[in-house]
């Protein structure tokens, strides 16, 4: 006997969690099945909607103007501009005062850990004081033991990028960190619980010790950027405590994995799933499916320690990610979607999957499923693969999220629409 729900979402990243949440709003039984840790943990927690056009024009101050002009087949074109706006409203309601950017259509430019700026539509409130359009002079603080972020170099790079304020950087020792290979969660933990640290002449709280070092380095700057390690469970308290101690604004500069802002967003999303009554099954892969009557999926098969267990639903959402999340996979001759074997268009010769410039227009970057306006995958002839399957997020084709800076926006919008349509089907 199969485990049965109304809607089954496969994949636990941004697209999958948002799809499950929007499906659950219709009242049916919703289940989310997720295998590995989601790529949210790699991500910055920023919600990029569209920073550059597919032709590379940008950074775009207003993403919505450009969305209307996107070519047929782009995920935003598939769902329509209004759905993008609805999805953002959904996200804003979900994240409440932990995110900024809802007050305007304009993109923000966020300083990155390597000292560039990148356009984004929504940003964690801990990133908000660092926006590049704000002309406040800025001190960037890096730590000797965190080699990804070099404060002085990032400051110089931002200056070269033309930001409208003075930048300066310093490298400090992080109080209480003895080992050069301590994980970022260790830094966050010290600040979360304000642990006692040895400062050579006795012990003091980690926040006070950190603030003392930064305070000495300040030369009139009105805000300070840190790598994203300012607490995890008590992030907001940590940041405001530091602001109070320093008397200036404090923000985090997004960085690569493992990324605490991404993990904080993940925590919020999973908390919301629990609140919404979504059944979450983690740590197991969906490996196959059973076809039913007509062009319908009867059930999918989940691998539980080598045993294939059926999970059935009326509607399915495929949100397994792109090449990174393995929702799209490949061998030496084919690019394919591994669970349902949905059609993935690609060049036959694998030497046409890429171009010679590392940041060139790589065909592989937009490989994925082609879908109709309801986000249902289509085969090579444009016919539906299945009547009760929708796809969302990076598994979709038609866009290069890295070049466009549109990854989380597309995941959010298509997850929202796919979940909403699936939920509407079952609530009849």
């Amino acid at each position, binding site marked *: 006997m199969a485990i049965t729900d109304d809607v089954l979402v496969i994949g636990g990243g941004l697209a999958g969690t948002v799809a499950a949440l929007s499906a659950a709003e219709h009242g049916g039984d919703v289940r989310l099945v997720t295998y590995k840790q989601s790529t949210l943990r790699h991500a*910055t927690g920023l919600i990029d909607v569209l*920073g550059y056009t597919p032709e590379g024009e*940008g950074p775009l101050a207003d993403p919505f103007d450009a969305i209307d002009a996107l070519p047929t087949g782009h995920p935003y074109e598939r769902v329509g501009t209004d759905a993008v706006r609805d999805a953002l409203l959904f996200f804003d309601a979900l994240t409440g*005062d*932990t995110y*900024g950017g809802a007050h305007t259509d304009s*993109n*923000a430019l966020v300083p*990155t850990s*390597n000292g*560039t*700026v*990148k*356009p984004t539509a929504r940003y964690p*409130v801990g990133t*908000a004081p660092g*926006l*590049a*359009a*704000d*002309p*406040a002079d800025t001190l960037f603080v890096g730590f000797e*033991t965190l*080699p990804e*972020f070099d404060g002085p*170099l990032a400051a*110089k*790079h931002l*200056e*070269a*990028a*033309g*930001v*409208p304020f003075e930048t300066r950087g310093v490298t400090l020792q992080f109080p209480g960190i003895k080992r*050069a290979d301590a994980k970022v969660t260790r830094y966050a933990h010290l600040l979360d619980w304000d642990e006692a640290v040895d400062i050579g002449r006795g012990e003091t709280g980690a926040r006070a010790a950190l603030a003392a070092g930064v305070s000495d380095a300040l030369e009139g700057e*009105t*805000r300070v950027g840190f790598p994203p390690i300012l607490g995890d469970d008590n992030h*907001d308290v940590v940041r405001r405590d530091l*602001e109070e101690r*320093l*008397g*200036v*604004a404090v923000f985090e500069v*997004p960085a*690569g*994995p493992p990324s605490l802002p991404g993990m904080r967003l993940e925590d919020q999303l999973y908390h919301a799933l629990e609140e919404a009554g979504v059944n979450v099954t983690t740590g197991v892969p969906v490996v196959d499916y059973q076809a039913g009557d007509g062009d319908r999926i009867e059930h999918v098969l989940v691998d539980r320690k080598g045993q294939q267990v059926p999970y059935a639903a009326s509607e399915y959402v495929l949100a397994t990610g792109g*090449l*990174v999340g393995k929702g799209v996979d*490949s061998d*030496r001759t084919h690019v394919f979607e591994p669970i349902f074997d949905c059609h993935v268009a690609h060049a036959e010769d*694998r030497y046409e*999957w890429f171009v010679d*410039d*590392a*940041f060139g227009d790589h065909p*592989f*970057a937009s490989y994925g499923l082609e879908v109709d306006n309801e986000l249902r995958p289509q085969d090579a002839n444009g016919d539906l693969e299945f009547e009760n399957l929708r796809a969302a997020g990076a598994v979709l084709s038609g866009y290069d999220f*890295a*070049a466009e*800076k549109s990854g989380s926006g597309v995941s959010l919008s298509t997850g929202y629409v796919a979940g909403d349509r699936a939920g509407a089907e079952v609530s009849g």
Partner: protein
Amino acid sequence: MATDTEVLVLGGGSTGCGIARDLAMRGLEVTLVERGNLTHGTTGRMHGLLHSGGRYAVSDQASARECIQEVDVLQDIAGHCIEMTGGLFVQRPEDSDEYFQKKLTGCRECDIPARVLSGAEARRIEPYLAKDVKRAIQVPDGAVDPFRLCVANAHDAERHGARIETHAEVVDLLREGDDIYGVTVRHDSGPGKRTHKTPGTTEDITADYVVNATGAWAGQIGAMADLEVAVRPSKGVMTIMNVRQVDTVINRCRPKGDADIIVPHETTAILGTTDEEVEDPDDYPEEQWEVDLMIATLAELVPILKEARTIRSFWGVRPLYEPPGTGTEDPTDITRDFFLLDHAERDGVGGMTSIVGGKLTTSRLMAEKISDHICDKLGHSASCDTADVPLPGSENLEALEDAMDEFGLRSPVARRSTQRLGSRSREVLQTTDPNPVICNCESVTRAEVQDAIAQSGSDLNAVRIRTRASMGNCQGGFCCQLLANELHPEYDEETARAAYDELFQERWKGERHALWGEQLSQAMLKYALHATTYNADGDPARTGTDVNFEAFDGGQTDTEAGPSGVVATDGGPRNRGGDQ
């Protein structure tokens, strides 16, 4: 302006660096110029097989004997550059018994220790060998890190007073009548130690004697003085696997052929190779069929290679040469021996000798013979010590084991670092500053990166060949930016940015040939990290885009907090401190 030296060596590969070390140790004043990094040409693009000589035991016994002698020498003087993995010549059922016997006899004739193993015995050593492997001959093959060996030679040459000038391309040979007396080099416009001179300038370097050790490029150099050096460049592909499927060098026991070696190398295994003559050593096609052939053919020996993950492929160009009139059709038949072409004897033009052919395993011996020749020419009498004096990093290797734990590094990191640095470990790793890991795939710490920067300047590809940073599974995905960060503040922001760009593009060049399955996924992750998180592709500092910052969201303004205020999480205005 001009500078003068006794001997000028052209080419910073294993031959050139070996000669520079040898002559400098004999007390001559030496300058070496190289147009790119050390190892930039063929040395940095080989499979890393340290030949026992077994490979040449049938076709070229003189070379085979030299190989086994030099393997012994290298164990004494370059222990930190080699790994004595042992090797197998593996016979499949379809391979000739007669050739197997010839190989065995040949090895014994050349004093190469050789032992016959049954298929089952061979599989006990290498469990992933194909089930139907018939027999194998066990020989003392090994793996050599060509970068480390070459850099150690150059480093030691410098310690003996040599000038090593990288990123200095020879643009002309200075010839007057029948005498070559120097070269003109152009210094690269790159920053830092890439050049000791002003970028873009040229420098004349005059010398009593010039050694053309430019390998596959020797013909181009010769042509600058109207001398013909008929080098026949031949390309070969090498494909790098993400793990060591084998811990022993695996050779196919048959007369010749493409795709017949697997060399375990550090954390990877390298598959090699093909042999195809090319016109221009700087411009030849890198083709898909070569990669596919490598995997398909070697999977006959080690079947799991068919499904295994490759991380990149690269091509090298052998400097094959044969005396005029030999007329060999197939490049695989051209001898691997080296040739010393004294242009005085050959062309009546004095002052220069060209070296062509040869192989890495015997490069020290080759350097010795050439140095003898040059000393003879210059009337300089000094004996060669290179076989007896260890290279920097290989002194007192016994003492190293005891020192392994003392650098405050997690033990796997310490083990990898000390393997690379050898006896220099203490000098490099003993630091009181925090020493975080910069490249996780290859366990390279800040101290080792800083040591490499001190040697080679701001060129991160030069740091790469010294440390292996960015050469593992992620191909620099996680460490390119971290490496660039390490350049600052010694080098300025623009230099660090350019160095990152150069390393990133260089890594991509080889990754392109491995883009399917796991590695395509890895490539997308790398692209996404650098484009999405860092916005390296849209960076206004790089694109030169003039951004109108005012048009962008500057945060939700609050009248009480002033124009730069942001509403705090509780909705109230936040005190911006310094504004007031």
